[in-house]
């Protein structure tokens, strides 16, 4: 790739090049500043923050705030740290991402390769789900969870995120599979593969890029969600975001800013990790559907 693109890159003079890099560097610094402040202050004892300069490097380096944020900080009534809530989030995110991606793939497959009467209308309605604001479903959703006996549970949150996510994942997979040659499906039919065999053996193995897109999108959205977590979870199932809020908002004692910074980084870490690991596939996957079609 890089070798081939060399001839086509626009040739620029040295001065222009230096200017470009300088501008990019400035912007990078600008965007990295908050992260810098957070990291630096999470590694300081509290008095250095309250008495000193937010921008300064720590005089005494310590990981105590991190340890405290993870396992000791007072959240709600108990001093458990973020640890249990982190696991709550994981227990919610993993099944919700997996199920919404799989169902989205299945929907995309049916909507493009097993056309039926009214399929476009159905797809339109599913798209509509992407635009429903969270707030207006809060009360009906609470009712539904109550009826299913899922109120306040992790599985209740999984259900909520699943329902909300399907609209997006279906959109992704439908557009991706629309560009997938129908002749392949027909060939597989002649070869004797059934509905699910075609899905598993032919379509899914070719869906890598769009699965990455769907997983990243769903993971960040569900992990970062606050409203549903705050509305539908109880103490045993509260996700990380809600716990972070409770920690920062807690009214008793001194405000331990260094612990808050560490907790905030901890809460953001998984999404950051997902982006670093799979980020470059994200753009590629988004492009794949549009360019091919």
């Amino acid at each position, binding site marked *: 790739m890089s070798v081939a693109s060399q001839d086509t890159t626009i040739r620029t003079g040295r001065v222009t090049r230096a200017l470009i890099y300088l501008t990019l560097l400035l912007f990078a610094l600008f965007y990295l500043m908050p992260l810098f402040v957070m990291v630096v202050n999470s590694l300081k004892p509290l008095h250095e923050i309250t008495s000193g300069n937010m921008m300064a490097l720590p005089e005494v380096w310590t990981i105590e705030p991190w340890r405290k944020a993870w396992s000791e900080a007072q959240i709600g009534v108990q001093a458990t740290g973020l640890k249990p809530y982190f696991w709550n989030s994981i227990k919610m995110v993993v099944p919700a991402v997996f199920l919404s991606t799989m169902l989205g793939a299945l929907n995309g497959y049916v909507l493009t390769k097993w056309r039926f009467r009214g399929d476009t209308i159905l797809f339109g309605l599913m798209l509509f789900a992407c635009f429903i604001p969270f707030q207006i479903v809060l009360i009906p959703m609470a009712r539904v969870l109550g009826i299913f006996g899922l109120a306040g549970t992790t599985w209740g949150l999984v259900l909520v995120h699943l329902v909300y996510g399907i609209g997006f994942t279906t959109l992704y997979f439908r557009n991706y599979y629309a560009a997938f040659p129908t*002749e392949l499906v027909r*060939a597989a*039919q002649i070869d004797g593969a059934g509905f699910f065999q075609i899905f598993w053996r032919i379509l899914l193995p070719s869906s890598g890029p769009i699965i990455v897109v769907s997983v990243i999108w769903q993971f960040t959205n569900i992990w970062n969600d606050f409203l549903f977590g705050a509305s539908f979870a109880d103490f045993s199932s509260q996700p990380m975001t809600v716990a972070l809020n409770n920690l920062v908002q807690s009214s008793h004692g001194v405000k331990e800013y260094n612990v808050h910074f560490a907790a905030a980084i901890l809460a953001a870490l998984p999404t950051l990790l997902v982006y670093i690991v799979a980020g470059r596939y994200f753009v590629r996957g988004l492009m794949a559907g549009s360019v091919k079609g």
Partner: protein
Amino acid sequence: MGFLDIDNTTKSYGPVEVLHEIDITVEEGEFLVLVGPSGCGKSTLLNMIAGLEEITSGEIRIKDQVMNGVHPSKRNIAMVFQSYALYPNMTVGQNITFGLEMHGVPKAERDKAMNDVAQLLQIEQLLDRKPGQLSGGQRQRVAMGRALVRNPDVFLFDEPLSNLDAKLRVDMRTEIKKLHHNLGTTIVYVTHDQIEAMTLSTRIAVMNGGYVQQLGTPKEIYDTPSNLFVATFMGSPSMNLIPVKLRVDGEAVVAETESSEGDTLSLSVPNPSARLKSYNGQTVTMGVRPEALTDAEGADHRSTHIEKVLNKVTVTEPAGSDTFVTTTIGGAECVARMRADTEATPEEVTEFAFNMEKAVFFDPKSEDRIV
């Protein structure tokens, strides 16, 4: 009762009927080519045989078994698609054996079948590659391998050569013909290329607008097209169509037309039918293939009805083996196929020889051939 019967079959999409009462019987070992212009319904008919499209009315039978509603995988057919439709995530070997695997054939047997087919098509060295790493011709072979390995009753091909370049197309054409010759399987083959149709088939169905215009051997289709559509669609350069006035004189029939110089040309028609005679005094369309309109030296020696006329040449197009000479007869532009070293020169009058044994006549209104 043939091997494959297409019996009064129609196909409609909603209120639109795209195939009208198709009736074709294919015998075992035949190579039937469906040919016609784009959108005439060739693929639709093939997909109906394969079971990929529903049959609106009528019946399709293979070996006397009614196939309506039978799943594609249970018809014992195999299909080669225009885009080859190789599974991109599987190796060539897996592509070839996927169908067997789906039919529950044990691994050892699958591997044996795969190796046999790979040997037959000379793709043994490709078995571990992915389709993305193959050239067009190699993909074509793999697609055929996938069809062959199933050992089906009927092979269906949908324009399998149209994605290849000209040279490879000719090579693969020969290979398909060889394959058919060696294996003797029944083949239904779709193409819009009339040369492919002529060279490969044992019989051709020429289709247009959802109708089968003519069903017959390549020779029948070429020499005695049943209507003007078939006459012009098959053959390249296409058949010359000259308006002529028929004059009956006892047993003899003469077709009269006008040369480029304004002279009347009288061409006597051998063995005229009674139908043809009934057109006495009327203008009909005479069809003459370019190879039946030549220079005097190039005319068919065995023909007993060569009519020589003088006419002015418009254009000459040397094509290596022959020279195509364009002229105007009876107001219609005609192409004559002359020897490569013909003396014909543009804007000069030269001698043209009509082989009247090969001339056919069409009713200008119904466009059907007058038999």
